[in-house]
């Protein structure tokens, strides 16, 4: 009996709080930030916070976001999820029920974004993650979105690049059959390439298992298959070995990779051997142009270092929210109604000019259609923006 009493008191209390919050007329709009500020990946949280604060400064300098002819000031409510799944769910709940945010940016890592997405979807609050690539984050959740592309999208992006840049028709793939990410990417690439170039156009589809160091037999096969380029969606510790062995076996053609190449360690381990090759990435700092370059320069002068992909994707994520608020039509002050309007506007986003690519959401999905950035490892061993590939 006692328990029932306590629970009902708590329920009543929260009900009172919620109604009180609704009654309070929202003059300023609140956007929640659910970030990994402490814990395993504090750099991710820091980049999220910095990018969001930079965006906020811009918006409020312009007098706020204009919705339906009226300007609304914006506030950020920043919560630390400690890089933990439970804390991320708690942070989301707090942002929704206590802070009455209209939308939430983050969490960034899939471990946190998947459970927080569940909470946001249940509370019918729009959430957008910058960085999480796990399909489950947005799956069957109409209120959850992301600003980055999914892993499987890299296959089509690369095949478009290889086709457009070199007019290649014959591809070779070398991947780790015992690891989910490379295996998935290899399969997606093969499917897409054969759809565009006919069956059998992947002339060599070779694999190895994790921890293998010698790929000479597979590479000999690839070299003699007549392939025009090699796609290897491997990690930075395997790519140098693959590249060096291929060169020593007489391979002189291009080698393409996935975003798993994007690590400074790659260049350290590979030396000069990887220079001149390409991979798909969300974002590249060197060689950036236009709005992307402007963002990088401002971020650098403000915080003292070049922003990473998390910062850039957060910038786009919160920008998407900002535009959705603008397109929501009216702000009623009833946060539930406003969230609904923002969600609708966000889902209808078409050709948002993000710094990581132009972003649109297809009907009924929180996974964007956007262009991928093709990055070249230049002669100095830097990751340089080369061009975009738009499926």
């Amino acid at each position: 009996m006692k328990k029932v009493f306590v629970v009902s008191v708590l329920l009543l209390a929260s009900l009172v709080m919620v109604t009180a919050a609704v009654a309070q007329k929202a003059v300023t709009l609140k956007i929640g930030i659910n970030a990994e500020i402490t814990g395993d990946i504090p750099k991710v949280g820091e980049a999220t916070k910095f990018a969001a604060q930079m965006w906020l400064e811009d918006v409020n300098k312009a007098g706020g976001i204009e919705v339906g002819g009226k300007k609304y000031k914006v506030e950020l409510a920043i919560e630390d999820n400690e890089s933990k799944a439970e804390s991320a769910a708690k942070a989301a709940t707090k942002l929704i029920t206590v802070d009455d945010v209209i939308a939430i940016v983050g969490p960034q890592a899939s471990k946190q974004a998947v459970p927080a997405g569940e909470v946001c979807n249940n509370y019918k609050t729009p959430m957008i993650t910058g960085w999480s690539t796990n399909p489950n984050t947005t799956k069957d959740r109409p209120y959850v979105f992301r600003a980055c592309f999914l892993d499987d999208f890299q296959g089509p992006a690369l095949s478009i690049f290889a086709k457009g840049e070199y007019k290649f028709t014959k591809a070779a793939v070398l991947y780790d059959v015992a690891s989910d990410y490379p295996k998935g990417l290899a399969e997606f690439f093969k499917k897409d390439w054969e759809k565009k170039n006919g069956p059998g156009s992947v002339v060599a589809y070779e694999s190895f298992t994790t921890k293998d160091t010698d790929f000479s037999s597979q590479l000999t096969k690839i070299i003699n298959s007549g392939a025009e380029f090699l796609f290897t969606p491997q990690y930075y510790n395997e790519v140098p070995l693959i590249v060096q062995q291929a060169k020593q076996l007489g391979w002189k053609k291009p080698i393409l990779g996935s975003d798993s190449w994007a690590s400074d360690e790659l260049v350290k381990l590979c030396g000069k051997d990887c220079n001149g090759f390409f991979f798909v990435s969300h974002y590249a700092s060197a060689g950036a142009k236009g709005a992307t370059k402007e963002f990088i320069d401002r971020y650098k002068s403000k915080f003292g270092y070049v922003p990473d992909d998390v910062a850039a994707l957060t910038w786009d994520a919160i920008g998407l929210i900002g535009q959705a608020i603008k397109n929501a039509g009216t702000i009623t002050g009833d946060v539930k109604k406003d969230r609904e309007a923002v969600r609708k506007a966000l889902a209808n986003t078409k050709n948002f000019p993000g710094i990581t690519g132009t972003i649109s959401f297809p009907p009924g999905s929180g996974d964007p259609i956007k262009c991928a950035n093709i990055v070249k490892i230049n002669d100095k061993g830097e990751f340089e923006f080369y061009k975009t590939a738009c499926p």
Partner: protein
Amino acid sequence: MTVFLQNLINALQWGSFYAVIAIGYSMVYSILMLFNFAHGDIFMTGSYIGFGVATGLMALSAAGVIALPNWLILVLTLLISMVLTSFLGMFIERVGYRPLRDAPRASAAITGLMIGIILETGNLILLGAQRIKFPALVEPVTYDLGGVFVTNQKVLIVVVSLSLAMALHQFIRRTRWGMAMRAMAFDYVVVPLMGVPINKIAAMTFALGSGLAAAAGILFGVAYPVLDPYMGIVFGWKAFVAAILGGRGSILGATLAGFILGFIEIFVAMVFPSTLRDFIAYSIILLILVFRPYGLFGEPYSVRLRL
């Protein structure tokens, strides 16, 4: 044809590593009747010691203390690391195996596993989880022999490995110490009663095996210059397979079996889809062992394992 020749060369390089590591396994197993499961990790440690020595020598050379050409650094790295790793081997024997010499064989076998884990995690604590790049002591030069590509590294690896195997074979065949080792392999119980100092023989066996493992580790670093603390595990297992396949008490058997293993792996991947490589390769080896349970070159009268 060029594909076949190319894979032949690939297999020679790959088999060299199995061969040199298998020798160390085979010696300990033949002479002391125990499985030194830490051997793969001694190979890993040897590679890291080689990395340390080479980096140090290169720094000395760059600082102008002594001008050393790269080939000399390689030779010195090989020698110094082999000696250092030999001491490590003797130390492991002294603290890990000697106290357990009369214990059940299973205890000695798991000692090896534990020492292996200690070496791996010790390395992890010391240097962290990031991969280490082995210094480029031998700049690769590729020769195109009519579509078959050979590098100076490949030649170096095969020549050094074979020379080491031959040198050890001669040592075992021609010296008094070698004779003592062969005698121990022949009868582990009676020979010590004849006055052969078992502790010295045991230490020497470990020293030689570990020195060879270090040489393999450095050559490995030259060919596959990305080192990580767990690189010895799978390699150790496979070399162990080669040691057993070679047959007890046969240095040349272990060497040859190492090459055979390398050939099977490479050529299976040539003929079949590479996904099936290890599945088919090790099924073949299992079949060989079914028909030749003493290994390819094992002597049928040798004492059976007491595990």
